[in-house]
């Protein structure tokens, strides 16, 4: 009964979504205010029924209803309860339902908190969101209904959730990622509404920006969690593989980064309107493209857990409709007028634009690398795969360039900046950064490594330039320091930019200075690596709720003192009889000690993989900082202003240096 209710609730949700995508638009075009006012209640109805449907699916999992095919395939009565909740989105069908739920959550959040925005405009935005929901709900109901029954032969037990996914990382990673992806649909819908009305002004940018920031921040967290999960769960010690699916989540993030900056220019200077609209369309399109790549199986990936040409075709149609529709609209309706605000070469506008171009080019390189195997195959030129060497060679230099720009853009003024002051402000920092970059690898590792110099140099540059900028901004006219002088969104920018610098330091150090050993260890063998001694004291048998494991006991000594006991596990999950590696990790801010058990080699001996990873935790800290920066900007009080601002830009007032 419950699965049928869930299916039914989803259909009712679809009915609401269809009404939502039609009625408000009819209202707007016929000037019928009553119809326009339907937008919000329809949105809430759509959300409530989707939520109901999701709750029904969750109930099926919690009550072990294995008559539901999806539950039987992804759960088991012995599965711990928290993983039953996570198993709801552990497969294709459920993760689509989660996508739809997130999307309707965004839509209703917008409906509830849009009092400051003009009703007709909100109605249009909600209608566009409604159309996207219709697309995804149809996709779910027609090709991947999670409520399908296995009747009459109901299995007594489920096949269990993939052991790789039975992990805290997986409980939180997909919801964050989907919040981010689906959140970009809000920015997209704002862009479409702007194209429909021809209203691409500062007010529009101000309405769009907090939503984009929210989506972007969630996506940041989602990507970082995915990376963290891969790091400790896959047992290879890697944290980023340039896998097509990782790229699929990363590309919208990079374009989203460009979008929030471009929106800030549109908001404060009224410039870059077409560019902003195009970025909003791109961010959403790349999210859809990611879904296509993951769900259709056109690209080989470690993540491709569901591939089905029928689904691929449907997603492609969805992608095609959304992107061709929006780009056609863009082609005809984008403002052909020259921007009213003028700026010279040495201006914040130029630098933000340059940074944006760098981000877009970086995205294009990732897109090319991701799709290149497909192009080759389609041309009959053979099968190839594009690996990390390509990305390192192409992506990193572009990002290094972008970071150089990041140092300058916050400092330089809008419209026009004197070349001289610019030199006096940053000249010294530039010289010190170069010296620091060149010197660093000698001091840290004893030999020169070009990439390390570049990474540490640009990180130093970014930190120093940002601090310099902070100092300029907190000095009050009286000469003292006043931390409350800059706006909250300024501080958000500072925190996020610092996060980028921290990430660069972490990536650089861990990539070049991590040490690794793959060895055979007998009981009581010791190995030393980077000053740590790892002693293997054999394995213990451990029984989990749904797995049995061999747990290795490794004592780690530093200068003779025991500093950690690492207990990596080699698990066998009973239902799927699948082996799983659980790494043993000891973390401090300075380094991770990482031990993973490989295969048993007989006589109590094991193949063991040992890593010392310096500063890897900076990666997760950086992601936290970046997301925090996003949330700080988003909650700036200027986005909470009740009044409807309709004029284009505050041209007369000298803008503050707070563009984030």
């Amino acid at each position, binding site marked *: 009964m419950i699965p049928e209710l869930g299916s039914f609730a989803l259909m009712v949700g679809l009915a609401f979504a269809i009404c939502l995508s039609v009625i408000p638009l009819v209202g707007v075009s016929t000037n019928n205010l009553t119809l326009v006012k339907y937008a919000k209640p329809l949105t809430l109805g759509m959300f409530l029924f989707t939520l109901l449907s999701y709750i029904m699916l969750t109930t099926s999992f919690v009550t072990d209803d294995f008559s539901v095919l999806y539950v039987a395939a992804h759960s088991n009565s012995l599965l711990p309860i928290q993983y039953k909740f996570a198993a709801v989105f552990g497969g294709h069908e459920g993760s689509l339902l989660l996508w739809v739920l997130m999307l309707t959550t965004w839509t209703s959040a917008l409906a509830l908190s849009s009092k400051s925005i003009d009703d007709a405009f909100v109605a249009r935005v909600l209608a566009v969101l409604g159309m996207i929901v219709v697309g995804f709900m149809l996709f779910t109901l027609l090709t991947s209904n999670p409520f399908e029954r296995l009747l009459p032969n109901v299995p007594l037990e489920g096949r269990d959730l993939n052991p790789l996914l039975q992990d805290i990382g997986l409980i939180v990673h997909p919801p964050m990622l989907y919040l981010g992806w689906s959140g970009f649909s809000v920015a997209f819908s704002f862009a479409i509404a702007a194209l429909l009305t021809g209203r691409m002004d500062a007010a529009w940018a101000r309405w769009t920006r907090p939503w984009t920031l929210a989506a972007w921040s969630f996506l940041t967290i989602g990507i970082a969690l995915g990376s963290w999960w891969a790091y400790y769960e896959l047992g290879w010690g890697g944290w980023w593989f340039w896998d097509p699916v990782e790229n699929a989540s990363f590309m919208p993030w990079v374009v989203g980064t460009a979008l929030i900056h471009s929106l800030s220019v549109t908001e404060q200077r009224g410039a870059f309107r077409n560019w902003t609209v195009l970025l909003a369309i791109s961010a959403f399109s790349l999210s859809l493209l990611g879904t296509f790549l993951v769900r259709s199986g056109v*690209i080989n990936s470690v993540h491709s857990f569901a591939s089905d040409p029928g689904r*691929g*075709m449907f997603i*492609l149609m969805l992608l095609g409709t959304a992107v061709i529709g929006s*780009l056609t609209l863009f*082609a005809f309706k984008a403002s052909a007028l020259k921007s009213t605000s003028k700026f010279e070469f040495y201006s914040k506008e130029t630098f933000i634009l340059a940074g944006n171009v760098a981000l877009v080019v970086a995205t294009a390189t990732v897109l090319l690398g991701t799709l290149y195997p497909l192009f080759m*195959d*389609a041309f009959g030129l053979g*099968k190839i795969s594009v690996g990390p060497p390509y990305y390192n060679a192409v992506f990193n230099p572009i990002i290094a360039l972008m970071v150089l720009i990041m140092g300058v853009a916050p400092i330089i003024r809008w419209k026009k900046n004197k070349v001289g002051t610019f030199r006096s402000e940053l000249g010294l920092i530039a010289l010190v950064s170069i010296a620091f970059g060149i010197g660093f690898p000698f001091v840290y590792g004893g030999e020169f490594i070009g990439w390390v110099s570049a990474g540490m140099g640009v990180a130093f540059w970014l930190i120093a330039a940002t601090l310099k900028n902070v100092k300029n901004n907190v000095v009050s006219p009286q000469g003292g320091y006043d931390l409350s002088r800059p706006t909250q969104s300024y501080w958000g920018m500072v925190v996020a930019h610092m996060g980028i610098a921290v990430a660069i330091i972490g990536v650089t150090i861990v990539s070049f200075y991590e040490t690794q050993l793959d060895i055979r260890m007998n009981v009581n063998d010791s190995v030393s690596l980077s000053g740590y001694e790892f002693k293997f004291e054999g394995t213990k048998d451990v029984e989990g709720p749904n797995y049995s494991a061999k747990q290795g006991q490794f004592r780690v000594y530093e200068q003779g003192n025991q500093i950690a006991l690492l207990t990596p596990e080699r698990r066998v999950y009973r239902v799927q009889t699948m082996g799983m590696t659980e790494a043993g990790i000891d973390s401090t801010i300075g380094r991770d000690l990482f031990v993973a058990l490989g295969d048993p080699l007989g006589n109590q001996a094991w193949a063991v993989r040992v890593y010392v990873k310096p500063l890897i935790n900076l990666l997760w800290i950086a992601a936290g900082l970046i997301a925090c920066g996003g949330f700080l900007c988003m909650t700036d009080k200027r986005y909470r202003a009740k009044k409807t601002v309709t004029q284009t830009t505050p041209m007369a007032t000298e803008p503050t240096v707070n563009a984030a």
Partner: protein
Amino acid sequence: MKRFVLFLPLIFFIGLGIFLYKGLFLNPKAMPSALEGHPVPAFKLLTVTKGDRVVTKADLIGDYYLLNVWATWCAACKAEHPYLLDIASSGVSIYGVNYRDELAAAQDWLTRYQDPYQFSAFDVDGKFGLNLGVYGAPETYLVDHLGIIRLRYAGVVDTRSWKSDFLPLITQIKAEIAASKSL
């Protein structure tokens, strides 16, 4: 003109969409077998275990044999290794192609995990691998008595693939040999 520029994103996407559509009908896991039915390409390489021994195509002998591409950097090769030992002990000749590897590491591998190969050609710059059309390690080629590649198998050889892919062809090769002898 200005308006035309605004159409560029649309044109770009339509081009992309065509590829994505084509991609739906391709199987990323299927590997073309360019050299199946062709002779093993010529080579002249040193071996891993004996640094002074030069081997060529003429050293590949047997009614049928396997050519196994491996490397120490390849994690899947490690998984495949015990099975290769089994196959070798059942009397099948396996020749190794140590692909783009380091000599010391490769030698260490063979002493540590045992050596299933008649010899392993040390293909340090990957030229022979390139001629064979190797996409990645591990790959295994089944070659018949005439030196013709009968099967190219990408990925880990295990009990299942041995039974389903190799054994039927081996039976067929044996039958062909018997037929040619009786003529």
